[in-house]
């Protein structure tokens, strides 16, 4: 399963420490706002992809509508903030709670479905939620919501003069997500999720309550994606159904996970580190059509990876390691 054998011992810890130091030092070395923003994007999408990976990679439940959780997080914290003045950090927690609740609502009926049907159901749910959001005036409808600018402060979760705090917050969220995934891999939860992915009926025969563990995976996944949604809202200060709930976001999350390597710890990060800068490049060179060009590449990558190297890039490296 973990095609990349974990680099053990002192060498492993040293490598990790180096990577972490590099990440911490990055914005001081590459000082252009553009670099920082790109890194934030990579971290955000890497976290979303890793969260998706927990459900789809480890547990084998392919969700093609994961944007619903992103939108839930973004809208919850923003609406609470703008309507009742709730602090965005509290709003973040509220968004997480709501996303987890939504995941239970979705999971309860849908986890009885087999692979393909579950995937179709997630597409349908994604479309439904996006349609509802466009038509719900209370949360801004198609016009979206613009957050009121506040003075720079950690409490208000807004930073304008210097955007460094955004970088570190996102890095922190990503690290937390990776830590949680790492823990999952090494504990009973990880074994159970993998068994469910391999063969749910055989998993049940050895005492695993399959639906319950699928729910757990989805809840953890939804929680991180929702947190990412709140971050996005506080970072961009504007959201609408097209930016936080679109199918293209659900697709992107899948692509990063699949290309990088599902079911692994580093796959989604590798996928994001490679593909997000690539998509920025196409956006710059091709302008408006860049978005469609991205998707052409994503589509081809998805099919290509699925057919030729389902283990993704990380799997490729793992094979070379022997």
């Amino acid at each position, binding site marked *: 399963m973990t095609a990349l054998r974990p680099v053990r011992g002192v060498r492993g810890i040293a490598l990790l420490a180096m990577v972490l130091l590099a990440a911490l030092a990055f914005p001081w070395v590459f000082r252009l706002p553009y670099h920082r923003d790109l890194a934030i994007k990579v971290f955000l999408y890497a976290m979303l992809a890793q969260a998706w990976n927990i459900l*789809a990679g480890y547990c*084998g439940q*392919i969700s*093609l509508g994961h944007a619903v959780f992103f939108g839930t997080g973004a809208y919850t914290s923003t609406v609470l903030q703008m309507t009742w003045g709730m602090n965005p950090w509290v709003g973040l927690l509220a968004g997480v709670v709501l996303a987890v609740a939504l995941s239970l609502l979705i999971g309860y*009926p*849908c986890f*009885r*479905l087999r*692979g*393909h*049907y579950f*995937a*179709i*159901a997630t*597409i*349908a*749910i994604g*479309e*439904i939620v996006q*349609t*509802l959001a*466009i*038509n719900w005036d209370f949360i801004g409808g198609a016009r979206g919501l613009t957050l009121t600018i506040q003075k720079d402060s950690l409490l208000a979760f807004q930073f304008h003069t210097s955007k460094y705090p955004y970088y570190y917050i996102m890095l922190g969220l990503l690290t937390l997500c990776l830590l949680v995934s790492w823990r999952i891999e090494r504990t009973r939860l990880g074994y159970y999720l993998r068994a469910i992915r391999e063969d749910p009926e055989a998993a049940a025969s050895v005492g695993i309550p399959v639906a319950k563990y699928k729910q757990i995976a989805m809840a953890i996944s939804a929680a991180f994606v929702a947190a990412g949604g709140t971050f996005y809202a506080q970072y961009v200060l504007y959201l609408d159904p097209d930016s936080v709930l679109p*199918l293209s976001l659900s*697709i992107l999350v*899948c692509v990063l996970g*699949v290309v990088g390597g*599902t079911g692994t710890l580093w796959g989604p990060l590798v996928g994001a580190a490679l593909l997000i800068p690539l998509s920025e490049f196409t956006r710059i060179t091709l302008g408006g*059509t860049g978005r*469609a*060009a*991205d*998707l*052409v590449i*994503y*589509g*081809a*990558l*998805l*099919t*290509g*990876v*699925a*057919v*030729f190297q*389902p283990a993704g890039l990380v799997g490729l490296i793992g094979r070379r390691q022997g």
Partner: protein
Amino acid sequence: MFAIPPPDVLIQGILSGILMGFVYALIAAGLSLIFGLMEIVNFAHGEFLMLSMYTAFWMYALFALDPLLSVPICAAVLFALGWLSYAGIIRRILGGPMLAQIFATFGLAIFLRSAAQFLWTPDFRQVGEAWIQGPVRILGISVGLPQVVASAACLIAFGILYWFITGTETGMALEATAQDRQAAALMGINTERMFALGWGLGSACVGVAGAFLASFFYVFPHVGGLFALIAYVTVALGGFGSVPGSLVAGVIIGVIEVLGGLLIAPAFKYVAVFVLYLIVVLLRPQGLLGKF
């Protein structure tokens, strides 16, 4: 939000729903055929339809060919596309992990949809001067003539497909392969050829439907997404793997779609259909006439 429209609007809606239902039935039959053969859901089915519609449109825009004349062209193009998709992609992921099966066709769908947008822009296209236009009165109710023709044609195509499957030797070999792959192989049926044929035929169905749809539907890159989801519901309701089931289900879905739009709001047409999908797969996973 809920408003009961006047009876004549309701009846007109139901009739047009039934007519569209036959189109849905043909689209769904293609999907069902493929699933029955190898238990793979073609996530790119909607995009195949989109390509068929674009084919008809470009035949019209470039060569002044009416969509009706493009029907055989679209059917042939899509048959080839289906066959090639099987040979190039599907063949390699049969029996593979679920992830590979889903993303192989899902990736293809995204690729085709985005390539269409990249090449032909997101603009909505329309066949301006189709041969068949305007309203016609059936039983005193006014419906569009293109819809009636499309509906009738799809029903006929559906009938031809059904006859092919049940009446010809190749068709029965196809059914046999769907029922029991190993037994079919033991009987000397070239299952590889059957799979490719299934993909070709299933896609050709969509080719025919697309050509007719082009005469009265807007053509744009994302049009496939809407029809695909309707097709999934139709197949689920009719029963995965059951071609006759698609007919019954198609009509039901067509009517529900219209009613959803009339009774709730046009934007919620598709919500109604999707909610129905969820209800069907959860309460009666095998559908009305399905095997699974």
